[in-house]
């Protein structure tokens, strides 16, 4: 009796969700892989024959420069987020529970606020006649306004500003789990503060660091609107290249290959994250 009544409900749910994921996640991604090995066509976007030209084009010095520069900016963004976020998460986990809840809430508020509007708000501060320049000149620290807007630095500031919560939240969650007893045990066994930090704190928070890096590094290469608004209209990020190839230049195979590059980067980071968790699990068991 149970079996019979339970099956249709279960089947319906599974068909619905698998159907959605196969149709709107798996198929589209296979299409992108397919597009990347086809030939560019001005009329129909894509045509035969199959070839690897678009992947070769990724190594064209012109684009290689963009990719390396994008990777460099994403790496700098990630390092800044980590440098700000790691001590932040550590300091946060040392506070009382109620205060932690409030501060985490304050960290999530910007995440719920329109990211375009927040990027635009930075423009008010960084512009040539913006607030920072006005303040510095008002104090007599500089005579001429600094050029901050439409530079790579401005784009990095924007990326750090938007992505910092994505670094802090996973870090905070590992610091929150980091059992005080472990730290104390390490201390009792005669380890100094530095030694405890190097041999206990860092390995135990590594999965959080990798999760944070993953959540910051990849979007930092893709958020084209930040580069558009704060960096001027140049191809600064991989995201800008992909967007231009798909929406303006109409070179789909090349845009698809660039997107696959990002997907491969994601796969590598996911793997590293899994490995670090597994290693930690094994160490905890022995």
């Amino acid at each position, binding site marked *: 009796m*149970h079996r019979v*009544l339970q099956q249709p*409900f*279960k089947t319906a*749910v*599974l068909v619905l*969700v698998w159907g*959605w*994921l196969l*149709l*709107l*996640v*798996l*198929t*589209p*991604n296979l*299409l*992108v892989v397919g*597009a990347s090995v086809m030939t560019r066509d001005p009329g129909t976007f894509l045509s035969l024959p199959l070839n690897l030209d678009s992947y070769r084009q990724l190594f064209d010095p012109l684009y290689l420069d963009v990719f390396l520069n994008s990777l460099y900016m994403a790496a700098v963004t990630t390092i800044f987020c980590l440098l700000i976020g790691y*001590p*932040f998460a*550590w*300091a*946060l986990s040392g506070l009382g529970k109620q205060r932690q809840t409030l*501060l985490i*809430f*304050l960290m*999530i*508020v*910007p995440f*719920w*606020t*329109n*990211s*375009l*509007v*927040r990027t*635009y*708000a930075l423009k*008010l*501060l960084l512009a040539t006649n913006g*607030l920072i320049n*006005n303040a510095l000149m008002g104090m007599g620290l500089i005579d001429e306004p600094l050029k901050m807007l439409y530079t790579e630095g401005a784009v990095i500031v924007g990326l750090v*500003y938007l992505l910092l919560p994505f670094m802090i939240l996973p870090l905070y969650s590992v610091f929150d789990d980091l059992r005080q007893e472990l730290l104390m045990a390490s201390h009792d066994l005669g380890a100094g503060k530095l030694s405890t930090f190097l041999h206990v704190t860092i390995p135990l928070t590594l999965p959080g660091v990798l999760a944070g890096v993953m959540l910051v590094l990849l*979007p930092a290469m*893709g*958020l*084209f*609107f930040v580069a*558009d*608004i704060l960096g001027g*209209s140049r191809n600064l990020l991989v*995201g800008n290249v*992909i*967007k231009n190839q*798909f*929406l303006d230049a109409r070179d789909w195979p090349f845009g698809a290959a660039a*997107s696959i590059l*990002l997907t491969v980067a*994601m796969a590598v980071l996911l793997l590293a994250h899994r490995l670090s968790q597994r290693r930690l699990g094994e160490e905890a068991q022995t």
Partner: protein
Amino acid sequence: MSRWLPKIYLTLVYVLLYLPILVLVVFSFNGSRTGYRWGGLSLEWYESLFNNHAMVQAMWNSLWLALAAATVSTIIGALTALALHRYRFRGKRMLRGMLFVVMMSPEIVLAISLLALFLLVGLQLGFVSLLLAHVTFCLPFVVITVMARLSGFDESLPEAARDLGANDFTMTRTVLIPVIMPALLAGWLLGFTLSLDDVVVSTFVSGPSYEILPLRIYSMVRVGLKPEVNALGTLLLLFSLTMLMLSQWILTRSK
């Protein structure tokens, strides 16, 4: 000294995080035309915002889209979470894995893959394509919100309901749904906000027939400064703040 250092540091980071937002709010009431200098208190940007017909239309479009996307993704997401929690089935790990990958994927990768699909099947870009795309990226967030609630749930309740003769459907309706209600509301609010905020995916899958707010803002802020955006940003901030507090209130009250 060393006791104060962490607190000073935390304060400093929060100041930097909120400074741009504060400036935006203050300048939305600025009467000056140049946008950078203070020209006295004024509501003129709010006025010109609401007189901007295209803008108001885009606002409504975004609101409808977010309502629809949040509702559909909450229904599918909640059912998925229930299935993952209650049933054994083949490919369960793969299903979890796929949802995780969707959540982790850079938005732009999702965006172009969906664009490719829509053009291939000949779907006209507009409300439907936006809805399909938004539901797809909201789905994993709803699933994890509901799963988190279910994992802390007493298993004896559904057992009891079944012993009393309820079938799965009845049990789900009378026992499980009330228990996960707070998570459903929180997931819905999160989906609503994610949809309202999305720029990257929408840039690719929207068409001229259905203009939405983020894209309208994007075209305005690409060059120069538009004080109207300050006013709009302040309203959006107020709106998301309300939504977030509502969601937190629902989640904490139910504990």
